[in-house]
């Protein structure tokens, strides 16, 4: 079953993250890969837009690309030298013993990511552990300047009062 069917067949509040590996972190995940234990699937996530939350982690919308099952495990197998895994979300500090080792690892990771298939899925999450919404966005709808408004995601009470 394709990831669109899997993810849209159950509420995001029921999704369970098995392992996310964050490649870009700025007070929260911005880009990386993840494997869900439920529903079972794997994907690349890439930040589409974020909205400041004055009292917590920012709300973030991510576009997904589907990865073959086993991709996250493959990537983890490429970077054992980066230390102990944090579960369910890990930010590996991307530091290697030498530049050639780093370049070789980057190439190997790129080859795994090259298998990703584009989808029209956008998901809402602050931390890749809990998800607050999922949308299937059609072709021609990707050039938005206000994704939160476009998807009709309400602001927090604190935001409304600011």
């Amino acid at each position, binding site marked *: 079953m394709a990831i669109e069917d899997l993810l849209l067949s159950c509420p*995001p509040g029921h999704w369970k993250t098995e392992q996310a590996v964050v490649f870009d972190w*700025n*007070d929260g995940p911005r880009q990386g890969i993840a494997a869900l234990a439920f529903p079972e699937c794997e994907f690349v996530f890439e930040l589409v837009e974020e909205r400041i939350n*004055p009292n917590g982690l920012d709300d973030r919308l991510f576009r997904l690309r589907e990865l073959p099952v086993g991709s996250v495990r493959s990537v983890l197998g490429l970077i054992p030298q980066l230390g102990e*895994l944090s579960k369910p*979300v890990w930010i590996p*500090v991307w530091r290697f013993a030498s530049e050639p080792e780093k370049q070789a690892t980057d190439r190997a990771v790129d080859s795994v990511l090259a298998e990703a298939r584009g989808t029209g899925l956008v998901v809402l999450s602050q931390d890749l552990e809990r998800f607050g919404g999922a*949308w299937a966005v059609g072709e021609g709808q990707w050039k938005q300047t206000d994704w939160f408004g*476009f998807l009709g995601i309400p602001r927090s009470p604190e935001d409304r009062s600011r």
Partner: protein
Amino acid sequence: MLQEPTPPLLVFLGAPPPPRGSSSPPPSPFWGAASPPPIGSFEKVFKTDHHPQKGTPLGGVIPSHFIRVGVHGSNGGVGPNDPLVRRGTSRESAQRLAKQAEAAEEAGNAQNGVPYGHGVSVTTPGSNARLAKDPADAVSATRRALEDAGFPVRHTPTRSAPNHHTVQRPKPVTEEIADLFNRVFGRKPKGG
């Protein structure tokens, strides 16, 4: 002629994700959550190389529980006089800073014995210009200013952001600490 965009297929939109540690969806959304309980002390986080803070570049009084750790640039990254950029120009609350630091600490591993740390994100001006949606919506301070104020800086590169650094915070992040942090970046204190 401009056309009204076709609404996307709305599949599921519940309340935003519940706060960390909650076992069931709360009746109120996550942003109404209370401040997290204290989960440790600054001394427990930085248990080596303690030195009482003796001065501040801000001319203010540094609380006695602030300690200075390490040497500028000792763990790599930018030099002491290089600027580090933090997103946003408005004052950040203690609650927001605490949750960000907690998330980083939980997700960051220990590499060669050095933990990612209980801290928040900063980067270089160049990376900010490349990565931020609005690069001008940011403030900056030198690494030295941050560390002299009692906020050690660790170089924590990620795959996509090799200039990412983490500014360490005491636990818990009090309003006093939040005010000092905001002042180092030139933001107005609470009520200021």
